[in-house]
């Protein structure tokens, strides 16, 4: 369980994080979204104990980070703003050192290396790794001590498609075992696939948070794509329907903002003498919600 209360970080006059409140229950995958400079990384850095809050508190599994720092951070693993290891040591040796420092058996290193599919490459020097390989070592380090809270900042950055898919499969699997995951990513489709809950930040504040489904239904626009030969007549017929908003033309189709169902739309089109060859619901996306809430991802 992660709990943030009034978490604030000031750099001079700039409020990088401006008093955010957030609760992430155990076994939840939370997506933390926001434009560049919205305060995501600063918030994650404070959760990881790297950056001291100006005000407010971070509580991890009931341990206040300021008062019981060691107990709070013992169950946290993370990869925030890139993986950091000694370039002249192999990926494996870097992980072995962390395992030694945590008092873990060496077989745990083998397990995480297998989990992130590093194989024999783990024996090469970290300095010679590609971005994707570095990310894999970083994720392996985050998972090494089987933490109950994992904080990941753009974990698929630099990963190949197979690695991205593995990561996408890994996070829900971890959550199913009771691990809480906080995932910051700019890949909104990825967040929509993986996360149950999201929090959207802008200018240091959380401007929306909740279940992905409820966020989509609360702010997302439900639209239907209509393909017909007589688009002008179809457009007039659909505009006349109740519970219908904008009707926009897109190539040979109409995009109709409506909560009416397909049968209702079809009936109106037939009554207007229009034969529709296709009616397709266009589901709201997290990207659309994000753009709407943040004013097209504007940096403030």
């Amino acid at each position: 369980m992660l709990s943030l209360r009034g978490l604030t970080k000031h750099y001079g006059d700039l409020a990088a994080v401006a008093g955010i409140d957030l609760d992430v229950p155990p076994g939840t995958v939370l997506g933390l979204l926001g434009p560049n400079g919205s305060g995501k990384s600063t918030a994650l850095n404070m959760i990881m104990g790297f950056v001291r809050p100006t005000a407010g508190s971070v509580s991890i599994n009931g341990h206040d980070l300021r008062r019981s720092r060691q107990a709070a951070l013992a169950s946290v693993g993370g990869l925030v703003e890139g993986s950091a290891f000694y370039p002249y040591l192999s990926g494996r040796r870097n992980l072995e050192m962390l395992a030694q420092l945590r008092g873990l058996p060496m077989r745990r290193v083998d397990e995480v290396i297998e989990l992130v599919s590093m194989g024999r490459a783990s024996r090469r020097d970290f300095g010679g790794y590609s971005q994707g390989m570095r990310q894999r070592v970083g994720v392996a380090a985050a998972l090494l001590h089987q933490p109950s809270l994992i904080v990941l900042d753009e974990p698929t950055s630099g990963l190949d498609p197979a690695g991205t898919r593995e990561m996408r499969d890994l996070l829900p699997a971890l959550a199913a075992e009771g691990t809480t995951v906080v995932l910051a990513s700019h890949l909104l489709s990825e967040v929509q696939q993986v996360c149950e809950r999201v929090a959207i930040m802008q200018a240091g504040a959380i401007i929306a948070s909740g279940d992905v489904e409820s966020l989509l239904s609360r702010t997302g626009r439900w639209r239907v794509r209509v393909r017909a030969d007589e688009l002008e007549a179809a457009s007039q017929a659909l505009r006349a329907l109740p519970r219908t908003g904008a009707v926009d033309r897109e190539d040979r189709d109409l995009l109709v903002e409506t909560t009416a169902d397909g049968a209702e739309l079809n009936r109106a089109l037939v009554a207007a003498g229009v034969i529709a060859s296709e009616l397709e619901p266009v589901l709201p996306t997290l990207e659309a919600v994000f753009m709407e809430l943040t004013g097209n991802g504007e940096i403030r």
Partner: protein
Amino acid sequence: MTTSILIEVEKIVRRRLNQIILAVMLGLLVVMYVLLWLASDVVAEAGGDPDQVAGLRSALFLEETVPFAMLLLYFFGFVGGVVAIGASVGSEYSWNTIRTLASVEPRRERILLAKLIALWGTIVVSLVVGLIVALATSTVLTVVDGQFDLSFIDGDYVRESGYSFLRLLVGTAPYFGLAFLLGTAGRSATAGIALALGVAFLEGIVSGFMVLAGGWLGDLPRYMLDQNGDALALAGGGPFDAIVGAGTPLGEAIDSPSVWHATSVLLVWTTLFLAGTFWAIRRQDLEYQGG
């Protein structure tokens, strides 16, 4: 803590930069011995002052070489140690590995303590190796000169050599502490190395002017690093007057501090630098530095 220290030692030993520093230090030691040996030959052949030649050679031969070896180790060890410490501490920031360490050990002062013990331990071992190389080189030169004789080795010789080594450690300690502080507070190897070396070299010049100015200003260098470091480096004796500028107005003006005074002052500075380092790391925000 033992695990942390051993891991720090491994990081130091396996780093190529540190291996190069040690190799250069040992190489320079041998080169200095050989160069002075050749120089003494040249001076002798040119009909130079026999006392001067004898003094120069005696510093190279086994019986009286310890003060000379310590002086060389003081300079090379000081530069090498500052570079090794500054690079070791600063790189943790430039590689962001300080964040990785901090995520494993939330008590940051323990990270620093392990690093401090490992670095100082490695430097002490390196200085011992340097001393052994110097003595070995001196032995070769003594044998070549046909004067090989170990009868001078007695309790006093061993004891004085031990004291010399302790003075070497105390003399270099504040500079190592300063590199530690600046590397940590400046969050970079450049800050640790350049500023610590800069302070070391500039302080000598500045304190020289202060001494020449006289009065209370002239007394201040007695409580700074340079004069006290020199006092310890030269406490073993040897033909090294030129180093403190003997015969020059500055040399005449310096009232060299006693060994105890120098030791006390340098240890106080070392403690202050280390306390500052621990204070700095506790208060720091460990932001990502790119890379």
